[in-house]
């Protein structure tokens, strides 16, 4: 799927969890992606990291290995 849409959606998720207390935001972003995103979408997002990492929220980048 198109990178701008997937990355925007992932960044929105990261923005929410960044606002949450605690130190496990990366894990929470990863858990949300695993619970609600189909595996193909997660795979696409991971694949897009190669070319579009700079567009990704830091939390998303760090969550990628966990999904």
């Amino acid at each position, binding site marked *: 799927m*198109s990178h701008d849409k997937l990355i925007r959606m992932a960044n929105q*998720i990261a923005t929410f969890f960044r606002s*949450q207390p605690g130190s496990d935001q990366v894990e929470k972003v990863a858990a*949300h992606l695993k*619970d*609600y995103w189909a595996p193909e*979408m997660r795979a696409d997002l991971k694949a897009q990291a190669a070319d579009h990492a700079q567009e990704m929220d830091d939390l998303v980048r760090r969550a990628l290995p966990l999904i």
Partner: protein
Amino acid sequence: MKDFIIPWGDDRDMGTPAKEGAPVTLEIDGFSVTVPEGTSVMRAAAIAGLQIPKLCASDNLEAFGSCRLCVVEIEGRRGTPASCTTPVAPGMVVRTQSEQVQRIRKGVMELYISDHPLDCLTCSANGDCELQDMAGVVGLRDQRFEAPEGGMRTHFARRDTSGEANPEYIPKDDSNPYFTYDPAKCIVCNRCVRACEEVQGTFALTIQGRGFESRVSAGGVGDDFLSSDCVSCGACVQACPTATLQEKSVIELGTPTRSVITTCAYCGVGCSFKAELNGDQLVRMVPYKNGAANRGHSCVKGRFAYGYATHSDRILKPMIRERIDQPWREVSWDEALGFAADKLRGIQAKYGRKSVGVITSSRCTNEETYLVQKLARAVFLNNNTDTCARVCHSPTGYGLGQTFGTSAGTQNFDSVGKADVVVVIGANPTDGHPVFASRLKKRLRAGAKLIVIDPRRIDLVKSAHVEAAHHLALRPGTNVAVVTAMAHVIVTEGLYDEGFIRERCDWDEFAEYAEFVSDARHSPEATEMLTGVPAEELRAAARLYATGGNGAIYYGLGVTEHSQGSTTVMGIANLAMLTGNIGRDGVGVNPLRGQNNVQGSCDMGSFPHELPGYRHVKGAEVRAIFEAAWGVEIDAEPGLRIPNMLDAAVSGRFKGLYCQGEDILQSDPDTRHVAAGLAAMDCVIVHDLFLNETANYAHVFLPGSTFLEKDGTFTNAERRINRVRKVMAPRNGYADWEITQMLANAILAAEDRPLWHYTHPARIMEEIAATTPGFAHVDYAMLEEKGSVQWPCNDANPEGSPIMHVEGFVRGKGRFIVTEYVATEERTGPRFPLLLTTGRILSQYNVGAQTRRTPNTVWHTEDVLEIHPHDAEVRGVKEGDWVKLASRSGETAMRAHLTDRVSPGVVYTTFHHPTTQANVITTDYSDWATNCPEYKVTAVQVGLSNGPTEWQEEYDALAERARRILPAAE
């Protein structure tokens, strides 16, 4: 053949409303009867089985005491008091029949009849007229009054005795499409006027004139019913004891002879109706007084707008085509299902197991929805199932699930009668949920306070005898900032309920949350510039909610359909927990569901990440339950949501869709993108009543059945499981659950797998109850006995659950969640300086597929753009001008309506008409957690135009081509 003997229950008119109070025992005609204090003698008699004659009394209206027909004798009291206005007293001895009262009643009736036409045999109320019945009951055998010499005018004769036109005569008003007002038949009992006030709360009717000149009058001087404030709810028609206010359908078709109790197929209130018929011809729908959601009331849609069921546009035969540029070909069911099965199997063989999916419908029954998601999971063997709740209340599912532990409204509708402060956020109940609105307005008239949080000045803000204490007219997209600012006031001013929080919620999470909201940047003063809500007004509203007694929040899609929809839902849950407004009557958090079975379709596992009962597919123990029941292995990974399906289709990975009872092309955002997704698929199966907009891109059309033509259950916004009963045979040949089963079996047979064998929706409900804990005790026999039940209904709650979270939250401790405001990326700028928000109107429903095919169009023939006079003026736009509405997604044109209901900078429209296609404008931005589209905020520009846009004209041409049907080959 009916499966059950249906005990319709006692729906006699008891004369006056039920009361609550200490028991009082009295004697009526020698029978001892015990009733609550405050009950009228009339009602007490009715409870004892003794019907006292009456005309002006009805048990949905307060006693009026005008007709004098219900007089009785009471020992020790002088005269003959009216039993409707006389409350019972301990030891009272009442006689309902005596020579004296019989004489009085006969005299009263004689006077009524002296000024009433005696054309009973040809009267449309013949056989269904209380005046006729009472004349019989009191034994009226003669009408002795004669006109004095020279004649005397009646109010009902067209001409007087000299042949001149009778000035007292007022002709019938048939301006309303559904009922007539015939003043000639009126006995001025006031029931219609009182029903309009007390039941509906519109105050459109009055009695004009005095004495013999008294007449019912709608609106002001020169108004008829259609031009008045009348909302055509029909409460007056139902209240009328004569033919004065009469359904046109009864006038045309005659009085009905049989009735079936069923559930309305429109909004999430889920009103119970008596469908009244002759043979299989539906004569009228009458709201059922024992219906627990509506208590005998209805709106214009449920009561009158059922004509679509027999509309000539209905498709009754299956159709197929290889390509969408071809005309449709009518074929047999076997051929259509075989064609569909081959296509879907071929797609899965070529593109993989996950290349197909389903969309279930909130307009279909629980049983149908259950089967459609089962089709994905057990036949397609993937989790690509989603429902239109995706685009309305999916954030409710996520937000309430995270905070309370389950996704459901916490109250029953009766609860609003105990509320002291009602907060309505992003909902417009008088248009979207009219029967709930009537119940709310009744409570407001009794003194409850109202806070409206909405960018538009909705009718509730100020209407007859109702005025909001506070209207927070926020800027679209700033819900989270407003809700968090309210929490800021409650926490920093110490208005929270510490006892409740300590007992029911996680205290550490509360502490973190309290620290977060206490920050000065969340204060109303700090957010005023952003939200446009005056700080003092917001503070006052927050104080009122926190300290005004029972606080109840009702919210709609103005909360959910935002990029922060889920966050606002959590913010709302936080407010309820902060103030202890959860777990008892009169309080709670209540999502108002758009469609009749939004709740049910979510309950039934329509979402791609969860199985029925909101259990994530990752849970091996949950999958095991369904794997045992279905004999297949269930995918442990979530499937695609509707927008994801469309994205995947555009990128060539998603090729086949079975879409039941939904019109995603019209209802989903960013129409061009939806169209591109559909066009990229190899097999789109549309299962619907009509060739809807989505069907323009379909290869298989399976004709659906209406709610009148099938059995099943709907679950309304208060979690109430109501029966839908078949009142006539399906015109298309099959109920929808049968069609889904046939499609499943066509695939299963081709793959030599075991077939489905459901013989009745009751069998499907048995499977639901066996696999889903909240439904464990639900079965059709129980629904027959109880009428309806609210889930959870299981060992812990065998009688169902009117109120949730009574002892504690479903998840254990209630969870406060930090709600940081994040501005949507959809921003106004020089190109698109205005914000568009969308909604619905009373007379139309959703995409209008049903209501546009009824006379409801008289109230709303087209979508119009509401624009503030200031914004209109700077653009040179005048009332009724064609304007072009453009966003970065697309453009459309419609007529402008200048109104200050919208603030400057905000424009508003509805999405009921496919010719307007308001969703060409809306964008693909969505809620962060659920992908629920951001319908409520689109940056737009408005300018004068000459008429429909190129897109509209092209689309109309395409739609016309796509709907061509070849005659059947045989």
